[in-house]
């Protein structure tokens, strides 16, 4: 059994690196949902606190869900089956309505999961109201179940709707829901047990496999929380869910999806955010964000796929990168005459050696390392002003090394701030032009055509998109139209033209 803390909302202004900006404090977040251009999530706490974001990067508190419910609290039937608390909700859109499932525990494991039904998530909308639809499932405090932590799943193969729930005491359970009402489709049927030793369960589907993601470990102890997300997969929605070693999750199996790393301890409560076009992300919370005093915070990270399993990606961090086209294998560079690293020299170790002068060909004495090339060594030969960009074989030269740097106070997109892309050691900034081509301008101005959204795609490659392209109505992505020619074009998920590798030089 676990004990939950309500994460305090702390206004914390940070340099935009790693996790989200604004007020991301939350515990047990629901799956992040995009509705009418805004992102929403709900968490554990009195009345189910709301976090909203205009771009998926900067988040703010926006009251609670229960404020829009008559009485401002769970209905009497929910309280009777469970208790007064409001924890760990999940939300899904079905047709033109939203279903919010929330935990209403009393003295655990006596608990219930209630349902709220509404037509909009936007508190500013005249249509914003939540209807209490009563309890959906519950646990009586004795049976092998603790009915909290709902995770709702829409099966894309047949349109059916399912609810998983449970927390450590007994089983993770599965029931089928009626998509018309959000309540149980077969209330008299016994729930199906699908896992143990976990909580925060939820399902996703991909290419014939149902994946059950759950959170193992302990929560609610700040940096002492061992929360980690694990998974199994099955060919049927009802299981059995086996991990990578064939161990049934009903027997404690679970392949690690993501654990603690860096400055963030205790990841839990997976939620899929599918942005289409091969871009998938997942929401989660960390029990402790060491950069924010150890509070629990929301994060959104890239979701990758490898060998039939989801892989937790990391949001791009500041650094110097080679930007290599997947299509052509050539690298983005400033269109200037390159200088070989170390200057022009033959194969010999002492320069100008030519054939026969290199190591193994009679060279004697220690060979001195050649320093890496940076812009300071060669920038004097580069033309001033705007310079074209092109693609060339990567040769570790200064005009091929790009500094990718988050930009403060410029907004962002789910999980990340916008970045500027400049030649390392200079302010020459990659810029979208009015004719949807590319140029490097001498300085970064903060204009939208110099702000870049960089999404990691499900295959681990990247999509790079300017925040805006002058005269373009639709988003465009960096594209390799030829081996030597980068441009901006509509992103097509089935093509390698707009896929890029970001490698450290």
């Amino acid at each position, binding site marked *: 059994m676990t004990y939950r803390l309500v994460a305090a909302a702390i206004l914390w202004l940070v340099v935009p690196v790693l996790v989200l900006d604004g007020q991301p404090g939350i515990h047990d977040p629901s799956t992040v949902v995009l509705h009418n251009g805004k992102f929403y999530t709900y968490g554990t706490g009195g009345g189910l606190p709301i976090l909203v974001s205009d771009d998926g990067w900067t988040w703010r508190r926006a009251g609670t869900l229960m404020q829009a419910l008559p009485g401002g609290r769970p209905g009497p039937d929910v309280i009777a089956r469970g208790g007064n608390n409001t924890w760990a909700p999940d939300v899904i859109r079905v047709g033109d309505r939203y279903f919010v499932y929330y935990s209403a525990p009393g003295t655990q494991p006596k608990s219930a999961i209630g349902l709220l039904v509404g037509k909009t998530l936007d508190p500013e909308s005249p249509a914003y109201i939540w209807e209490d639809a009563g309890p959906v499932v519950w646990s009586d405090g004795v049976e092998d179940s603790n009915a909290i932590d709902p995770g709702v799943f829409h099966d894309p193969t047949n349109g059916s709707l399912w609810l998983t729930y449970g927390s450590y005491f007994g089983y993770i359970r599965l029931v089928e829901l009626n998509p018309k009402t959000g309540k149980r489709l077969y209330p008299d049927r016994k729930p199906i047990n699908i896992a143990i030793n976990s909580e925060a369960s939820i399902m996703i589907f991909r290419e014939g496999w149902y994946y059950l993601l759950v959170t193992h470990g302990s929560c609610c102890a700040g940096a002492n929380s061992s929360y980690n997300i694990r998974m199994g997969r099955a060919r049927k929605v009802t299981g059995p869910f086996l991990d990578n070693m064939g161990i049934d999750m009903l027997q404690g199996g679970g392949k690690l999806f993501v654990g603690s790393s860096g400055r963030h301890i205790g990841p839990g409560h997976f939620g899929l955010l599918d942005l289409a076009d091969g871009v998938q992300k997942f929401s989660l919370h960390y029990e402790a964000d060491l950069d924010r005093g150890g509070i629990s915070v929301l994060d959104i990270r890239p979701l990758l796929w490898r060998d039939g399993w989801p892989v937790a990606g990391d949001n791009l961090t500041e650094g110097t990168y080679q930007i290599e086209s997947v299509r052509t294998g050539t690298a983005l560079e400033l269109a200037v005459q390159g200088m070989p690293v170390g200057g022009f020299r033959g194969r010999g170790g002492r320069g100008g050696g030519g054939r026969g002068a290199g190591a193994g060909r009679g060279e004697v004495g220690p060979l001195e390392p050649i320093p890496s090339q940076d812009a300071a060594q060669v920038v004097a030969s580069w033309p001033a002003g705007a310079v074209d960009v092109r693609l060339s074989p990567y040769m570790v030269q200064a005009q091929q090394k790009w500094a990718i740097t988050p930009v403060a106070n410029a907004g962002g997109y789910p999980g990340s701030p916008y970045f500027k892309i400049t030649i390392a050691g200079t302010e020459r900034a990659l810029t979208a032009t009015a004719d949807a081509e590319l140029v490097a301008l001498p300085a970064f101005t903060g204009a939208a055509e110099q702000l870049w959204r960089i999404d990691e795609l499900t295959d681990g490659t990247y999509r790079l998109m300017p925040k805006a392209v002058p005269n373009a109505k639709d988003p465009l992505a960096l594209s390799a139209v*030829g*081996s*030597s*020619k980068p441009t901006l*074009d509509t992103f097509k998920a089935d093509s390698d033209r707009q896929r890029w590798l970001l490698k450290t030089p």
Partner: protein
Amino acid sequence: MHRWLSKLTPALAVLVVVTGSAFVAVAAQDTAARPPAPTLLRPKTPTRAVDAAGFVQRWLVLEPIRVAGQLTESTVQAAVKTEYFPNQLTVIPRDGDRVTAGDAQLAWHALDTTNYNLNLFHFAYALGKPTSNVLFWAVTVVNAPREMPGVRLAIGSNAASVWWVNGEEVIRLYNDRQSVIDDGVSNRLTLRKGPNVIRAVIVNAGGATDFCARFLDADNNPIKGITTTLEEDRKAAAH
């Protein structure tokens, strides 16, 4: 294999492969023993459609001009900006026209290539002309059935090359490189309805040398509904 040796391989092949090509080398002092270019033909029709992949297969090519053969950006730019013969950036030559470049008399040749690319090594070798440290001029006229905005010229060249469409420089490729389809691609441009002049300079240092060219539509697919001509609408193309 050493890079330069690998580039020699096509040359060796030419020595042992003799085809029934109709292209006859223009008389040159050392061509008596040279077979005709195996991939090049003299055009027999007024116009020729681009091939199934959109490649332009009809060109006027000037016999090679000797240059230093350096392929860096600065040396190629210097080579391109050198005036070798009058009106070199505007002339639409005819088959057999001659120019004087330095102390050399050079002829333009109308060529149809049987491949997607035009093999300049075959061309020069058959004429008994140098193939290394040389610069080639190539010109063709593309007829568009309608105005075609948002298209791109896409080329590959061995080695460096500079390209113009209707007098505007649109592609520059430098350094030693192989001819790769759609290596150099222009910005989006508009093909006029009717004739459009495509002009190129290809600079080779050593070994094999060739180029290919086609147009891509807004979806980056090859444009197939265009033809090339060497005789018709020359006046229109010149304007």
